[in-house]
């Protein structure tokens, strides 16, 4: 589904990604771990099409199409979703309104009619229940005055409504207490499907207790240094990232 080949990218004149190779197949969940500053978030932003992140080499295909040739909104409509590490506030814009606009943009590009208002409301209520969000959320502005945990739940809620083929969740677990982590994990797990894939970007193994990945990758210095199954995450938890670096040198 997603094939990244020798991807290099720079931000503000600094090379961050230095030849990333990664393949994610439908039905899989991948975790990308690594120390601070290793390029995890940059990878997520580049895949989503952030303008100020400059691709300097390599290629990315998504469902066989050249992903890097598409503007960000078309990547989204094609089924790529980014759960933001720091979701922005958009004052005065209703949360539900944004979500409806997003869903309709996607439906339109798929040649489907706009969603019926009543159906939409019942869909969103059902997903909100799963995410244990209060009704007041319906009338609030986009992330306006949300706590860190609420923002993350909101990201997952958007993902559930949009049902992307590929969800990239950038540190969706950070800042969550254990109860919220369980809720968010349940949300992500509910989306698992043979036709979909999830890429989790995270610092901590903790998340992977609830969302068990098929593959774990360690990104460091702009490259994937090591890949393995879910036991790799546990080993990282015990031995730290330095262990990966040392084993590479050896």
């Amino acid at each position, binding site marked *: 589904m997603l094939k990244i080949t020798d991807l290099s990218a720079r931000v503000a004149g600094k090379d961050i990604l230095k030849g990333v190779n990664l393949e994610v197949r439908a039905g899989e969940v991948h975790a990308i771990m690594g120390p601070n500053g290793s390029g995890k978030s940059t990878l997520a932003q580049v895949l989503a099409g952030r303008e100020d992140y400059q691709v300097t080499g390599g290629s990315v295909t998504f469902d066989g199409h050249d992903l890097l040739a598409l503007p960000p*909104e078309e990547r*989204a409509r094609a089924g790529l979703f980014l759960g933001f590490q720091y979701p922005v506030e958009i004052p*005065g*814009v209703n949360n539900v*309104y*944004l979500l409806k*606009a997003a869903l309709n*943009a996607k439906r339109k590009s798929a040649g489907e009619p706009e969603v019926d208002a009543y159906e939409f409301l019942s869909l969103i209520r059902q997903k909100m229940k799963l995410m244990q969000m209060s009704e007041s959320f319906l009338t609030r*502005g986009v992330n306006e005055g949300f706590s860190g945990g609420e923002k993350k739940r909101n990201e997952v809620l958007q993902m559930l409504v949009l049902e992307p083929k590929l969800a990239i969740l950038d540190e969706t677990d950070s800042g969550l207490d254990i109860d919220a982590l369980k809720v968010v994990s349940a949300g992500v797990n509910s989306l698992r499907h043979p036709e979909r894939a999830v890429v989790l970007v995270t610092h901590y193994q903790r998340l992977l207790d609830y969302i068990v990945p098929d593959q774990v990758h360690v990104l460091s210095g702009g490259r994937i240094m090591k890949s393995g199954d879910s036991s790799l995450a546990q080993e990282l938890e015990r031995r730290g990232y330095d262990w990966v670096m040392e084993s590479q040198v050896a």
Partner: protein
Amino acid sequence: MSSKSQDVEALLAQKYRHGFITDIESDSLPPGLDEGVVAAISRKKHEPQFLLDWRLKAFRHWLTMQEPTWAHVHYKPIDYQDISYYSAPRAPANAPKSLDEVDPKLLATYAKLGIPLHERARLAGVAVDAVFDSVSVATTFKDKLGKAGVIFCSFSDAVRDHPELVERYLGTVVPPGDNFFAALNSAVFSDGSFVYVPPGVRCPMELSTYFRINAAKTGQFERTLIIAAEGASVSYLEGCTAPMRDENQLHAAVVELVALDNAQIKYSTVQNWYPGDENGLGGIYNFVTKRGECRGRDSKISWTQVETGSAITWKYPSCILKGENSIGEFYSVAVANNYQQADTGTKMVHIGRNTRSTIVSKGISAGHAENTYRGLVKILPSAAGARNFTQCDSLLMGPKCAAHTFPYMEVKNPTATVEHEASTSKIGEDQLFYCLQRGISAEDAVNMIVSGFCKVVFKELPMEFAVEAQNLLSVSLEGAVG
């Protein structure tokens, strides 16, 4: 959302949508201004002596005045002798008594503007007093209003039918010599709207006027006077638009509001005069004096404006809070794109005890535009316990526009409370990217972010106006980002 973006494109393809010119013979005075012209206007309108004297006094005063230069706007000097001060559609010998008698071309013009008088008025329950150039051509719902005792008519009709009310209130809020443009208007105003709501009456419908400047090289000088007597209330809507021309046109209106004890007046404006083209050629100079006086105790005057048009806007709807416990409000969205210049704001003058005022101003600048908020909060020694809250926010789109805020405060009573908040922000790349990543187009995203920014003002507008205002914003800001 998706169909909305098509609408925006369609609207853009049409450029300035209201830029058509109706081909009707005008009965105009030749360009030029002297006492003879002032007298001719008065004579054409069969005015009583007091009004002619009033006009001439204003004109003589105007001659002694200098055009103001303090506003943060730039334009070439206006040649006041090159303007025609009167233009009326040439009507058949008898003035139309019903819509059926109105020139069909004129009605078609209104239809293009989106106000088919019959349907719109009936369906929406809105009485429309449509001002075409200078003469009021059709007034609907007069009867229904008449039953409630509400007088809603053209200014000329008011002068003819209710001269005592006109004489009593005209110029009592904006005196003829108030400022350069008000003095000019007082001398040469040709028509406008008049509203009187008698004591204890709540006006049974929203009152609405659409103004339109049509004939080339005519200035439009309309005069609006609204009086809400003791315990009365009224909501008045004003929509403005003008055809596209290369030369600039002057619009110098005066609006006076009087609220007596316990009365309420809500005055909403959506202004979309032609702003000039993307290079700054043409467009309306909108130099308007709007002021309301809360003359009675517990009265309230509320101004809401959405300003998207005009090459230059110079406008400060104000409240004189004379009555004890009276309330003044000002909610404004001002958009300036391309080479538009807007210098707008309000004055709240607190005279009575425990008077309160609220100012919420949202300025949006794009292109090479200059957008200035200028506000004065003045608390006189008599205004014990007065309170003001002011919030001014500016949103910048692109690197070449500018926003300025000049809040003046004069507080002469120590028991008064005055609060001021201000912010300037750019449309965030983060906000934009967030929307794009959700599949929303850049155009729709910008509309959404801007509407969110303006929401507190839009919710003060009557429903149908809020929709129109939102559409206008989308069109005005097309292409400003991205």
